[in-house]
């Protein structure tokens, strides 16, 4: 099962390789990984999506907590959380196709961020389902390039149970 882990770390130079090395060294799997600074100086937040059975996820969480530079690990999977990913897609958009691509842009409320003679670059933000859906739809026009940020996520303020 897919899990989204929110990992708060001390922002020291080796921290990314400590985390990544832990996953590769112990044979855990990383689907996406995103890192950036937080509002607090000296702390960065990593969002890692991974998969495995309960036992594996429990080990991943514990092993992450054991790293000396990791401050906090939260498995967002069983909490109410918001989850987003941003994707830039350069898609073929010639003649007839162009209008249709623009229609999809409209329906999915994405943005056109670069325009060329025969291609458009789109910015799409959404959860995994939305991104999967739009990538699927655009496939038939021919996707030239694609860059994804990986999932970022935060716990919702209101947790219902």
């Amino acid at each position, binding site marked *: 099962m897919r899990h989204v882990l929110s990992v708060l770390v*001390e922002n020291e130079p*080796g921290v990314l390789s400590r985390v990544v090395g832990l996953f590769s060294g112990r044979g855990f799997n990383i689907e996406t990984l995103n890192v950036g600074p937080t509002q607090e100086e000296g702390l960065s937040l990593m969002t890692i999506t991974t998969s495995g059975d309960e036992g594996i996820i429990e*080990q991943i969480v*514990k*092993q992450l907590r*054991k790293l*000396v530079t*990791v401050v906090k690990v939260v498995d967002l999977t069983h909490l109410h959380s918001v989850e987003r990913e941003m994707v830039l897609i350069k898609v073929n958009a010639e003649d007839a196709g162009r209008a249709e691509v623009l229609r999809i842009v409209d329906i999915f409320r994405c943005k056109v961020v670069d325009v060329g003679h025969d291609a458009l670059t789109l910015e799409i933000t959404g959860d995994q389902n939305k991104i999967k859906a739009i990538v699927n739809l655009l496939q038939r026009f021919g996707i030239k390039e694609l860059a994804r940020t990986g999932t970022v996520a935060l716990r919702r303020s209101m947790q219902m149970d």
Partner: protein
Amino acid sequence: MEQTGAQILLECLFRENVDAIFGFPGGAVIDIYHHLPSYPALRHYLVRHEQGAIHAADGYARATGRVGVCLVTSGPGATNTVTGIATAYMDSIPVVILTGQVPTPLIGNDAFQEVDIVGISRPCVKHNYLVKDVRDLAWIIKQAFYLARTGRPGPVLVDLPKDILQAKTVPNYPESITMRSYNPHLEPNRRQLRKVAGLLQDCKRPLFYSGGGVISAGASEELTWLSRNLGIPVTSTLMGLGAFPGDDPLWLGMLGMHGTYAANMAVGHTDLLLAVGARFDDRVTGKVSSFAPAAKVVHIDVDPTSIRKNVNVDVPIVADCRLALKGLRDEIMACAEETDWPAKYRPWLEQVQTWQRDHPLQYVFSEEPIKPQFVVEKIYALTKGEAIITTEVGQNQMWAAQFSRFHRPRTFLTSGGLGTMGYGFPAAIGAQVAFPDKLVIDIAGDGSIQMNIQEMATAVSYNIPVKIVILNNGYLGMVRQWQELFYNKNYCATCMHANPDFVKLAEAYGATGFRVTRAGDVEDILKQAFAAPGPVIVDVIVAQEENVYPMVPAGAALTDMLLV
């Protein structure tokens, strides 16, 4: 007043009460060596290979419970310590490794003797640091020692670029450490302890399975009290030997691949397994699904990752082993209705003792060739558990564990998790440095001893009177045993052709050498060796194809043992 990085480092070591440094110099650390004579309290032991330095620091740490310190230069000096760092990591031993590094402006340039030791060592240290500013040095060293010895102990490496060692600042030595990202959980949860007390009341066949964590937490007394007052038999891992008195009637011996029949049978039949400071390693469990199949499992460990890593646990307790066992004792005293625990478990104990009687550890004696087990028995008979025993790796290590008995923690030093050949001799040097008046014996194999034999020069030059007893079977015996049993006796690359004359080798180094070939001479020669003033090698020519039994083939259930 301003001080250089090198001076600050030494001052930090002094403040940590370091009294021994095992090291080897080089260009990147000359500044440290330059100032070392101003700190006579920091006794430096010049080894002959950096692997010797890290194992000696490790042996010092295991024997004392204090942090061992190792100092080496950049590049090859640093990489030579890696095996020893991994050894300490696998066995949770507190050591601080100080490595030189090229000056910061050169880092990343493939400079002379540059190596990314922080990157190389990352998977086998508890934590590591590259010092980039001399103003950070004092707190980094403070943290390094704190991390090494607290929680689940382990090696911590500090990489020291040469320009940082030369840079000057007015140092500020921190008195204490707080880290928001590191807070080991030490206090046991009372509710969980109460559950254990309840399980003790409900069970009929409890068993303590104790590990190295009992030793690192200093929990031997608590373990012994519980075992004796409740009448619960104890088995332990290789790492746990010494935590429980080896002459106690409740002691079953080691469990696992080369565990005793009684210990392995007890695991097979227990209905309450009390795992304390152990981690269910594959050499201990054999086939995991048949390990303690009838038991509820209580697991006490300071490291949450150890719990439920390999087996399911009914009552997990993340805590310091000593605090947890103490808490359990209080719980039992406070709320249990049971008054005569030993009577409650007596039928179980009788069963266990029957297993012990039916299949004790045994071997067939012969006058010539000498049986290696006989030599270990003699060592024990002469030392009565008063010596510190280290081992190399292989059959010698298993026989040392089986046929000697250990009565106190920190008297049996062996590379358990990594199984590092060449560990025993330098570790013995480290232990002897910590306890100059104790008898320190390395029970060695003819293969392993050659991996760090160069440290004989260290032992001779500081007159460190370690006694090495080589169980010389002319083979990489443990590998040969596997070839015999599982590979049709295809003894490829395990015969030690052209072993040196170990007696002459000892003499060449300026040490003393003895050779024994007949069982009748063993006791006398060992006595002479132990009484001799300096370092000694005793070369005991033993039966070449003797095997270690019992043996649980890899992946088999613990109760499926091959016996003598």
